[in-house]
């Protein structure tokens, strides 16, 4: 069964450093998302991406964050200058898009644990 994959599984970085989290969504899916979960808190939406541009972003997704689909398979989240409060599990998700069965269901990757020291 197709699945969303993410690398690395765990990333440790120092405050102020740049990190890039990588995701390979399910092929032929059209919508891509990043979510995060700070320990003990809810899963929260960061950004959605469609047709090579951001379709929606949350208040959390400030100028320090960016997303990119550099080729036909990868989807990346970059944090330019990490802060301690960026420590969280980051989940990538994708869904098939409108007009197909189960268009609204988002499928999540296993996550990247980001630790900022």
């Amino acid at each position, binding site marked *: 069964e197709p699945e969303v994959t993410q690398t690395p599984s765990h990333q440790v970085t120092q405050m102020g450093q740049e990190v890039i989290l990588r995701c390979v969504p399910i092929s032929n899916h059209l919508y891509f*998302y990043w979510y995060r979960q700070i320990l003990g808190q809810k899963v929260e939406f960061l950004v*959605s991406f469609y047709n090579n541009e951001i379709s929606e972003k949350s208040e959390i997704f400030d100028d320090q964050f960016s997303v990119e689909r550099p080729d036909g398979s990868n989807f990346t989240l970059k944090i330019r200058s990490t802060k301690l409060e960026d420590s969280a599990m980051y*989940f990538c*998700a994708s869904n098939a898009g409108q007009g197909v069965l189960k268009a*609204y269901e988002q499928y999540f990757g296993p996550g990247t644990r980001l630790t900022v020291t």
Partner: protein
Amino acid sequence: DQQVKQNSPSLSVQEGRISILNCDYTNSMFDYFLWYKKYPAEGPTFLISISSIKDKNEDGRFTVFLNKSAKHLSLHIVPSQPGDSAVYFCAARGGFYNQGGKLIFGQGTELSVKP
């Protein structure tokens, strides 16, 4: 942001019995609801969903009920199995679809099914 709430942080059920997980929401514009199951150190796994135009959807041992007037949905698992022990998240689809349809999650309910 308390648009989706799961008021029970935990639930313990005997194997073979029914598990009922509850979720309340406040925004009547939500048009689609999903349940996810999550194990520690893994991503949420999609379980079952329901459109706001329906009041019930069933898939094997899992049934989701939606009461729009009460802004309440529930997930029933019958019969419960020890492998069902996990954290269950309720999520609602918010925003217009052409904006990507972000999911808004509840806090989760940890289900423990005892043999």
